[in-house]
């Protein structure tokens, strides 16, 4: 048995060497990637959230890497609200593509092409199992019809907030002085895909590493697609021995202290003041790291998705009131709607409801991004502050009065804007649907609209009998097609595709 194991080991080792040699000597490294990396052209709708009925179309190009199964792997970034996908091999003609799977939280997507001619002469890349922890890799991209290869140095693998999600995910960081990186460029070693580039900050490229990609693609085969999970508890490092002593831990300090547990839409067996000692069998140190077999010290958040997926159970060993115990933690699914102010609204028109010139919209990060990339400084303070609030069952989301389109009906209110809606006719408002329902409860022919108490206007009264006529007049005057766009989160394209 030992001999057989050793033989197998030697075989694997030698096959790796052969593979590298084969690529270098026979197939030619550059030729291989020329047939593997393609240009993806995305045409997509862009919305002006301050005028949500207004839209424009823009076009951009990014990279894709052909993988097994006649599919092209790319990042999910910039694919939201797409209307057309086209693919180009080298300098050749464009083919129409189609997204077959997308997970915005993971920032990954696959695209296929129904035209068989596209696949002629292509090669497919194998996705490496583990990203190297040091050394030089190659970044591959098409630029002005020329395939570029540039060396990038592996810096580290780190767990940090994903580009399109609130979930902390593994990122392979690479050092490079190249500009304009972050368009799903392939990071490769020999004939293996190591990562897809997602962003560049100063001299550091962030990329989605192969091991994470493999996990997501494996999950894709599940029915239903589970998606990424996250830990719904907030912890702090336990570098203060006095704090651990207070909470009843004896001996050498380790683990982290739970300080907050999200309770709005998920239940958690973990409670504030628990000390987390182990997750999924991995010991947690006082900094919140575990020793990953592939990558060394990584933030514990990675254990929500390392081998698990949303809905699966992770065993967590804790100290509670001085006693050690193990709890079964069901990893909740990462969904934008978990947050009070959703980080993204993908593949949906912006929702709004126009009532007598009052434009109501859900408060979302895309809405706040109307104030630019620096929105958390430039947007109205109270709206930006809402992103710090935790959603609760009683207060799951906000509706904002975005503006008032002037009309004789709303005279005196025209300067009201960026106010968080509290009640309509006495009913608390969390969604646009609440507003529409609240309209039924007009008192003595008047709507009473109340805003969250702050430093500006609190109450507005509208004539209920004139509201619809005013809305119609305003729609016509301002050239707006409809008074509302409402969509159900369950009808998103991403979810549909994820189930396919």
């Amino acid at each position, binding site marked *: 048995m030992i001999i057989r194991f050793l033989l197998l080991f030697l075989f694997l080792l030698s096959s790796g060497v052969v593979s590298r040699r084969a690529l270098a000597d026979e197939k030619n490294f550059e030729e291989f990637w020329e047939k593997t990396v393609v240009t993806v052209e995305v045409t997509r709708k862009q919305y002006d959230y301050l005028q949500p009925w207004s839209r424009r179309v823009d076009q951009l190009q990014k990279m894709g890497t052909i993988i097994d199964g006649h599919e092209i792997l790319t990042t999910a970034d910039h694919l939201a609200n797409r209307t057309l996908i086209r693919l180009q091999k080298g300098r050749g003609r464009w083919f129409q593509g189609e997204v077959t799977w997308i997970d915005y939280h993971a920032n990954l997507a696959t695209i296929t092409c129904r035209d068989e001619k596209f696949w002629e002469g292509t090669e497919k890349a194998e996705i490496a199992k583990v990203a190297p922890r040091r050394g030089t890799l190659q970044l591959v991209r098409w630029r002005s019809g020329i395939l570029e290869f540039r060396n990038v140095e592996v810096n580290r693998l780190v767990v940090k907030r994903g580009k399109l999600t609130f979930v902390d995910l593994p990122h392979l960081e690479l050092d490079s002085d190249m500009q304009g990186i972050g368009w799903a460029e392939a990071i490769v070693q020999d004939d293996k895909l190591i990562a897809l580039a997602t962003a560049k900050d100063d001299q550091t490229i962030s990329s989605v590493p192969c091991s994470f990609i493999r996990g997501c693609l494996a999950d894709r085969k599940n029915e239903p697609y589970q998606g990424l999970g996250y830990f719904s508890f*907030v912890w*702090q*490092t336990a*570098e*203060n*021995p*006095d*704090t651990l*002593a*207070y*909470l009843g831990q004896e001996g050498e300090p380790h683990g982290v*202290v739970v*300080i*907050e547990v999200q309770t709005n839409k998920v239940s958690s067996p973990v409670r*504030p*003041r628990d000390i987390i000692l182990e997750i999924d069998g991995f010991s947690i140190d006082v900094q919140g790291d575990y020793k990953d077999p592939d990558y060394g010290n990584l933030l514990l958040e990675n254990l929500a998705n390392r081998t698990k997926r949303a809905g699966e159970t992770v065993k967590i060993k804790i100290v509670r009131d001085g006693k050690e115990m193990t709890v079964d933690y069901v990893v909740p699914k990462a969904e934008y709607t978990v947050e009070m102010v959703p980080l993204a609204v993908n593949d949906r028109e912006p929702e709004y409801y126009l009532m007598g010139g009052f434009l109501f919209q859900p408060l979302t990060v895309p809405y706040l991004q109307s104030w630019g990339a620096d929105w*958390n*400084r*430039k947007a109205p*303070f*109270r709206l*930006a*502050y809402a992103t*710090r609030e935790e959603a609760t069952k009683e207060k799951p989301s906000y509706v904002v009065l975005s503006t008032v389109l002037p009309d004789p*009906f*709303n*005279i*005196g*209110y025209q300067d009201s804007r960026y106010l968080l809606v509290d009640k309509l006719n006495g009913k608390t408002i969390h969604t646009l649907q609440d507003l529409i329902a609240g309209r039924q409860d007009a008192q*003595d022919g*008047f709507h009473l609209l109340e805003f*969250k*108490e*702050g*430093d500006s*206007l*609190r*109450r*507005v*009264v*509208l*004539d209920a009998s*004139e509201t619809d006529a005013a809305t119609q007049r305003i729609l016509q005057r301002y050239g707006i097609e409809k008074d509302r766009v409402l969509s159900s989160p369950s009808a998103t394209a991403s979810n549909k595709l994820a189930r396919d």
Partner: protein
Amino acid sequence: MFKRLTGSFILILALRAGFGASPERSVIQISNFSQQPVWDAPWRFESVRRSSGTGFVIKGKRIITNAHVISWARQLLVHKFQDPHPYLAHVVYAGHDCDLALVEPEDPKFFEGLEPLEIGELPQVRSTVVTYGYPAGGEQISYTRGVVSRIELQSYSHIGNRAYLAGQTDAAINPGNSGGPVIQDDKVVGVAFQGIPGLENAGFFITTTIIKHFLEDIGDGKYDGFPQAGLRLVALQNPAYRRDLKLPDNDLGARIDHIFDVPTSEELLRIDDVLLKVGPYDIGSDGTILYEGNRVFLGAAFSDIQSGEKVPLKLWRDGKESDLSLPVYTYTKDKAEGNQYDILPRYYIYGGLVFVPLSRDYLRTLGSGWGDPANAPLTYELFYRKHESPETARQEPIVLASVLSHAVNANFGVRAHALVDRINGVRIDKLDDVIRAFAQDTGKEQHLLQFQPDHTLEALDKKAAEEASAEILKTYGVAKDRRL
């Protein structure tokens, strides 16, 4: 050369034609050697700063100037017109809400040969005024002429959270002019006090209505300040809202949208009461009154009244008119939201942890703007929470301002700018609670502190902290562990 002389000639002539007397003799230059406290290390002071402003002599042998000219003074010197001798002076009254102060020279001889300037009435818009003062750019008195551009309510930036009547003029008002008289027909019609950055040819002066209120206020030997009714009044121009309130469509009335925690207003007034008249002034549906020929926000009417007096109101409630007499008082509950003066900041230090009340002055020490994401939780706590959820608001939110590093607190993870939620389970509503919470016996060897908004927990060894306290204070040069 000829043109320049001609120009000067006309200016001198005009000045002589305008003023029979020589007001400049009664205009005083004030030098303030001030030292402000450090709000996040309140036992320390900033380095001494010299600033210069203007004042003028009024009857009663006193000098009136801006409060911001004399604030945090360690030494005040007053200089007479073309007199090289500096005179020591001290502050008699400071009205920081209205940015006015009275200064008295130590030497009564100072006033020899000086005639007090008379306080006049509110000037007419478009009328000509001349400002007198000692602005930057030279040592001698400076005169600038302009017209009164408009008169309306302006935010008074010295206090930061009050608005009163102010005049705007295109006469140049520059740093150093502050506290100087704005003169028309030999009488003072305003005190120059502030500008708006980026706004050209616009300086602002405190109107005589505010000056007279200040002088009347101190008549009893103490300054109370301007009363506040604690109302948010908004325009009432929407026909539906007016119909809902059964109010005639006559362009009169402003609606009470919110009542702040002012007991008399909370008792006597209601949300959706409509104010039709304040004192002698009818209130327009846009929330303004006609105040001595100027259309200004109705808040100006409350400036006529002293704290403790009653303001007659005519209001519309339940579909009919009624009369009410509303007592109004100085409101101090929001003092932390404004800039604070005269009283040194409070603090308490335990085990090297420095606790201070959250205030606008403290927020300023954080450097970047209040909207900065890093400061947002404290900004929300100070300015928004009490309005949005008064049940969770604290009387005096306390911040861990800094940690005076020492072995006992070296592992304490929270180092600064954190709102203190609880200590040893005691909710911290004010600075006294911090002292009480540390003093209580919990049966544990550690104190447990909880911070907002992230619920961070940090413990501190009790015995070690108490033993180290004196040494920490000594190391950091702190004379006392508290100023309460």
